[in-house]
């Protein structure tokens, strides 16, 4: 059980360990990336429209590989964290921090490091880097969901499995995976959507004299914007939206509708999600024949084989061999962490003292930009979201539109935003805020809609009976009622905005690099200049800033929302 008492005492030790590990990992990455070729330019992107299907396939395959990796990670990491009490104490804080640090700040070093690993074939390294980066944007929420699902399986269902002598495999199939299915599917969908954001960002990367380009929709659109080719831009964007909507309809919706049967509820509630595709598949004679004569017997056979191999459940007590092994492993990992930490600290010691002021200024600027983006986002999403959420007819028209609009990853729109805003005075500053806003506003909007549509009718009627003025109604009913959802949206939005600073504050465009003062720009700049001490310092500052904001602001608001404004 995840109770306060067993989490609290180890919290800070675990945090310190994780922080040390991160610095060590960062140092390792930077060390590797110093071996990357000095000036490298991938083949230019062909802007011919006929290449678009090929680019789309390449992008989707990249996403698929990253998602597969995320799923594999989720199933193993989540499982171990849920069942191994000792590992849980470290694994959970690690996950928590990994989830809250802006992973894009690692992007430049990851790309350089992996390119350096494959000196003969830089594109392989770059391909791997893009997959790793998308993975880091997808895996954490899925893992958390799987872990919590496993932890919250009702005791009686577990006992039923035990008394029926199920072995580990049978338990996984009949109890654990089904229990986790709903959460896993929803989080997969979110992760997939988030994956597009990272994909667009990492398909084309300019660092110093090197330009890394992977064939795909993201690089196509950046190249099109760079060339000022309006036709290519329109076609690229339409293809992207088409692919996203197609996958949503053909893959995700059927899966969501199918996963509905795994809801742990004993009464039918609400309208279940539907999918035409799934209904067609379910009614198809051919599919039924296949399942009856091929899939089911095959499944039975496989199941039998695995069971024969595993045998009956044994008395589960951890053997002494494993513990010795784990001690050795822990000691080795600890040594590596200490070494990396030491190297990292010596690296930081090379920095002049003036860097402190520079970093503080950069952090302040980024903070203001993120805040501005969130405030602008709130200013339009609260009234619009409440209007949509409390008006079913409006919602029927606008929901699909907003969903499609939201499905376009902000990074895909960056080049176009730059095209419009750069010519203005302080253009890059405006552009950066606009880019952050693009990446965050949808989280806010959807949560406000969800909150507003959940306001119980009797509360609204009470407001009407007492003839509350518009302001009173907002103050006493609407704002408190949407508060919990709003906080959820804000947490995600803030995380997304900080992450996006890396790409928003530093943009190559029309052959030049455009940047403003900010932590994101500092990180991208330091990487391209090979200034590792500065890169390390800036990344640490950014990660620490985001984690502290999470702990000090969002988590408290979250608790307040849960305890006081919850409608249940």
């Amino acid at each position: 059980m995840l109770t306060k008492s067993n989490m609290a005492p180890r919290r800070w030790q675990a945090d310190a360990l994780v922080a040390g590990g991160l610095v060590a990992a960062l140092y390792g990455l930077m060390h590797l990336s110093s071996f990357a070729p000095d000036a490298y330019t991938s083949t230019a992107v062909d802007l011919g429209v006929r290449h678009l299907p090929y680019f789309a396939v390449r992008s989707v395959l990249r996403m698929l590989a990253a998602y597969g990796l995320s799923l594999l990670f989720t199933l193993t990491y989540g499982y171990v964290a849920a069942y191994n009490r000792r590992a849980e104490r470290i694994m959970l804080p690690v996950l928590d921090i990994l989830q809250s640090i802006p992973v894009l700040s690692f992007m430049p070093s990851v790309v350089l490091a992996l390119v350096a690993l494959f000196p003969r074939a830089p594109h392989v390294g770059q391909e791997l880097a893009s997959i790793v980066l998308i993975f880091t944007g997808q895996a954490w929420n899925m893992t958390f969901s799987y872990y919590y699902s496993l932890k919250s399986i009702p005791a009686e269902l577990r006992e039923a499995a035990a008394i029926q002598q199920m072995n580990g495999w049978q338990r996984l199939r009949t109890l654990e995976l089904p229990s986790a299915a709903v959460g896993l599917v929803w989080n997969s969908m979110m992760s997939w959507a988030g994956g597009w954001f990272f994909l667009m960002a990492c398909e084309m990367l300019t660092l110093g004299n090197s330009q890394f380009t992977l064939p795909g929709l993201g690089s196509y659109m950046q190249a099109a914007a760079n060339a000022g080719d309006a036709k290519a831009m329109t076609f690229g964007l339409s293809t992207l939206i088409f692919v996203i909507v197609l996958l949503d309809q053909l893959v995700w919706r059927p899966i969501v509708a199918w996963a509905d049967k795994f809801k742990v509820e004993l009464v039918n509630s609400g309208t279940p999600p539907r999918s035409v595709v799934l209904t067609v598949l379910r009614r198809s004679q051919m599919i039924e024949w296949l399942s009856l004569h091929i899939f089911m017997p095959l499944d039975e056979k496989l199941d039998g084989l695995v069971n024969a191999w595993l045998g009956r459940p044994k008395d589960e007590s951890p053997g002494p061999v494993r513990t010795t092994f784990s001690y050795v492993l822990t000691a080795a990992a600890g040594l590596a962490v200490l070494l990396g930490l030491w190297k990292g600290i010596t690296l930081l010691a090379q920095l002049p003292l003036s860097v402190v002021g520079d970093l503080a200024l950069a952090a302040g600027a980024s903070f203001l930009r993120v805040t501005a983006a969130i405030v602008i986002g709130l200013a339009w999403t609260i009234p619009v979201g409440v209007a949509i959420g409390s008006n079913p007819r409006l919602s029927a028209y606008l929901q699909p539109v907003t969903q499609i609009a939201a499905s376009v990853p902000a990074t895909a729109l960056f080049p176009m935003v730059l095209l419009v805003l750069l010519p203005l005075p302080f253009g890059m500053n405006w552009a950066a805020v606009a880019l952050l806003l693009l990446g965050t506003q949808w989280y806010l909007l959807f949560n406000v809609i969800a909150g507003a549509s959940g306001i119980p009718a009797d509360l609204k009627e009470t407001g009407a009976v007492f003839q509350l003025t518009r302001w009173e109604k907002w103050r006493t009913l609407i704002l408190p009622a949407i508060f919990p959802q709003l906080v959820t949206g804000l947490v995600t939005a803030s995380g997304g905005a900080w992450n996006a600073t890396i790409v928003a504050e530093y943009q190559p465009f029309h052959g030049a690099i455009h940047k403003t003062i900010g932590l994101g720009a500092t990180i991208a700049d330091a990487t391209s200049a090979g200034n590792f001490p500065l890169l390390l310092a800036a990344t640490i500052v950014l990660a620490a800033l985001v984690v502290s904001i999470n702990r000090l602001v969002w988590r408290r608001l979250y608790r307040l929302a849960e305890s006081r404004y919850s409608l249940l």
Partner: protein
Amino acid sequence: MQKDVLKKDVLIETKGVCKRFPEATATTLEEISLQVREGEFVALLGPSGCGKSTLLRIVAGLIPPSSGEVCYRGIRVKGANPKASIVFQSAALYPWLTVQQNVELGLKAQGVPAAERAKRAANLIRVVGLDGYEDAFPKELSGGMRQRVGFARALAVEPELLLMDEPYSTLDPLTAENLRDELLDLWLEERIPLKCILMVTHGIEEAVYMADRIIVLSRNPARVAADIPVRLRHPRDRRSPEFDALVDQVYKTVTGAGLKQTQTPAQQRAVVERSGRYKPLPNAAVNMLAGLLELVDDHGGREDLYTLGGDLLLEVDDLLPITEASELLALANVVEGDLVLTPTGKQFVEADTEERKALFHQRICQLPMFEMVGRVLRAKRNRTMNRQFFSDLLEEQFGPEEVPLQLKTLISWGRYAEMFHYDANAEELYLDEGDRGLLATGSEQ
């Protein structure tokens, strides 16, 4: 079946089974030694939270005992007993599997081939009267039908030992009675190869109606308080005088077992001073307490607990905390299964709201926990203390799961008595102008 039971083999034997949970300092089960023979239907009765279900799970091999051992046919049980099956309170069906798949589950785990599985499952589904529902999902079924599936699933593996954890408690009375009779038919006519049934229940009538033997557990810690044979012939008539007498006898034993530990406040204070511990507050609402006392007063100041439970439509489990509270506050006493108003209790019933509150305050001031709260609040300059402080203080004794319940009762009683205020947002207890807690109680001076 019970006539020659003593000649039959001992199926289950628990030898000095103890169970402690790391969170709570108190032992849950202490020195439980029992023998259950082939052919017996045993009911485990006891006040709620006494550890009946824990004992059932230890017998099943789902939880290891802290000390002592459980033997099945003379062999020590390690891990889930393959000869046993459980019917759970919630039926515990897998929501994503159909009725048929749920029933087949245990057979599948045993590696029974698909065709054989389907045949045996279909047979049991017919036995529990659910033919036609093979393809239904649990959420499409009523509670009673779900529990039928639970029975079918448990019986499909042809267990020797059937363990039941309050299997009828979530069903409506009619369905429950129906299911009880069906199980008794299967059992008495030996239509299923069962050797023994062990049922946890808090329904005294249910136990007398079904079982051959009733084992009563006491609370805190749970020990075997009584082992009562039931020699009534099946089918048993609930309206017969013998049935009634037996129910009454068991009722007295159970309430005795639940209340045995209650001491007068003076004795209790002595215990607290010795061990530094607080007597747990029964989780009873003040208005329920007042209602019960008024009812007893209407009956002339003394009434049978069993009758009271019937009047209030309360099971003994729900009634016990209220009677415990009335004893703790010396408003009534339990004498031979009857609840008897004390003079203070009589005074309480006749008082108006304000007087009741004053009297209630006077009574709770006698309890060490309230005394402590009053002392702490008065000692602070701002007369305020956060909830966490008391929570931490009590956690050592009660464990993390019980503390919120204790504090809930503490705050609710304190608020009623106007002893202190509680700010739920700030999570603080505080003394306000006019609060009775501002005045020190007599015992302190």
